[in-house]
């Protein structure tokens, strides 16, 4: 009974997957996108970039949720955060995840950068991905800076004020930058509105396409520094895939109607590393 239901479910999922693959090629793309050969030794350090991506995704999701209750006005910003933390269902959890994943994000980005730096992952042909990564780092710092003020408590307020005063030392544009951020020549309602707009729309809208570009460049060149090691391993992978394909053809099966294991081609683990 259970076995039959399972095989029916497998058939259905195979049908859906094949249908999608046939029309959009999405499965092949996903496989190309998700599977990456990495050296066996120290494979875990290659997960740091994914960890950054995961934490940023958490930021987006919890940030959207927080927006349902947060109010960016000087008379109610602190009140609304207080409401989230004390009255809203799971408010502590949602804001806690936003707060802690932001903190961890800074640490994980540092580790990710260190890993890329010490493994030489920034060398040709990956220089541009390093550049994009640095821009992403600056955007995340901007997000952390602007998010701090939104709580509108003493801690966040003074940290932002001191941060802006540090910025005022910039040559030539220091004053104008401060006036742009403050929304005038003093901290007030305009400052909170501006930081809110920058934190919630401007920087997330800038960071999202750059993450896409970062991932595209990553997939184009692979994750790690040593070119020969990479090509060798990739050649090996293609060789095994080819041999498997041959052996299947020799057994007389149509490779596109290969359903021996009832999981379909896309479900088999043989073709993957």
């Amino acid at each position, binding site marked *: 009974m259970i076995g039959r239901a399972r095989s029916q479910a497998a058939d259905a999922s195979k049908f859906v997957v094949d249908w999608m693959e046939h029309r959009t090629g999405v499965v092949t793309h996903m496989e190309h996108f998700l599977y990456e050969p990495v050296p066996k030794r120290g494979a875990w350090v290659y997960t740091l970039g994914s960890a950054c991506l995961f934490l940023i995704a958490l930021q987006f999701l919890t940030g959207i949720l927080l927006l349902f209750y947060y109010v960016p006005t000087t008379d109610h910003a602190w009140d609304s955060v207080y409401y989230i933390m004390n009255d809203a269902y799971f408010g502590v959890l949602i804001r806690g995840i936003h707060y802690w994943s932001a903190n961890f994000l800074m640490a994980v980005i540092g580790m990710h950068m260190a890993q890329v730096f010490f493994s030489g992952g920034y060398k040709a042909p990956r220089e541009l991905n390093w550049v994009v990564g640095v821009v992403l780092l600056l955007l995340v710092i901007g997000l952390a800076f602007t998010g701090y003020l939104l709580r509108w408590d003493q801690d966040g307020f003074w940290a932002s004020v*001191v941060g802006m005063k540090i910025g005022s030392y910039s040559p030539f544009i*220091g004053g*104008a930058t401060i006036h742009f951020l403050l929304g005038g020549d003093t901290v007030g*309602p305009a400052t909170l509105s501006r930081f809110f707009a920058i934190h919630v729309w401007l920087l997330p809208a800038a960071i999202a396409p750059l993450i896409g570009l970062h991932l595209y460049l990553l997939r184009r060149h692979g994750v790690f520094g040593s070119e020969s090691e990479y090509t060798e391993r990739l050649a090996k992978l293609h060789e095994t895939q080819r041999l498997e394909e041959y052996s299947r053809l020799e057994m007389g099966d149509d490779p596109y109607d290969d359903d021996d294991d009832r999981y379909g081609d896309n479900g088999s683990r043989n073709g993957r590393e």
Partner: protein
Amino acid sequence: MTELQKDPITRGDFLGFGLLGTVVGAILTIPPVAFVLSPVIKTDLLGESDIDEGWQEVASVSDIPTDEPASFTIEFPIEQIYAGPDVQNQFPDEKRSDEEFTLKNAVWLSWKSEINHDTGKIAKVERPSFLDEKSSGFSESEREELKKNINVLSNSCAHLGCPVRWLINLDGKGEFLCPCHGGLYDINGTYEGGPPPRDMYRYVNVKIEEDGKLYVKHGYDIEPGLDKQQPYVV
């Protein structure tokens, strides 16, 4: 270069397209840029300020202690986006917001003092002696003398703007200490040590009324050579 010109363009067309492009580009970019940068335009180009220009009461001169500074808070009303009177007084019978939109600053008041350079202790305090007899009803010349001898200092550190506080060491020497990076100033706000690039900011517009109340206007002694404030003080 010649092979690039597959589609030859006349000089007139080139200029026409250039002009059209400029006009369309200006129409598309000027409104949003001016919209976002309006505070920069108002502050830096037109010289406007969000902070009220009027006098604000700080304290009575008799409240200033003899040999140490005392801090007082002042609030300058501000007019910034929806905090301005245009919005808040739109319907005078119905208040738009309960919030008092102000800039809250702390001021350190003290008597100008001579410092003994060996011990760092205060050697002489320039406190007018007539203060022992009266706390109000000062004449014109007395008010001038009071004004001359009072330090009106912003509590914003000249390094990065953290609030400074007055501390007295074990050996009895008093100093303003910034908690952030250890900037040090003496009782007159003169730079003593640490990262600050200058003395503490002084309020330049100070007046004392007959009843002994001290008033200030917002504004500091920014050095004339530097047209920019560094750091930015609000």
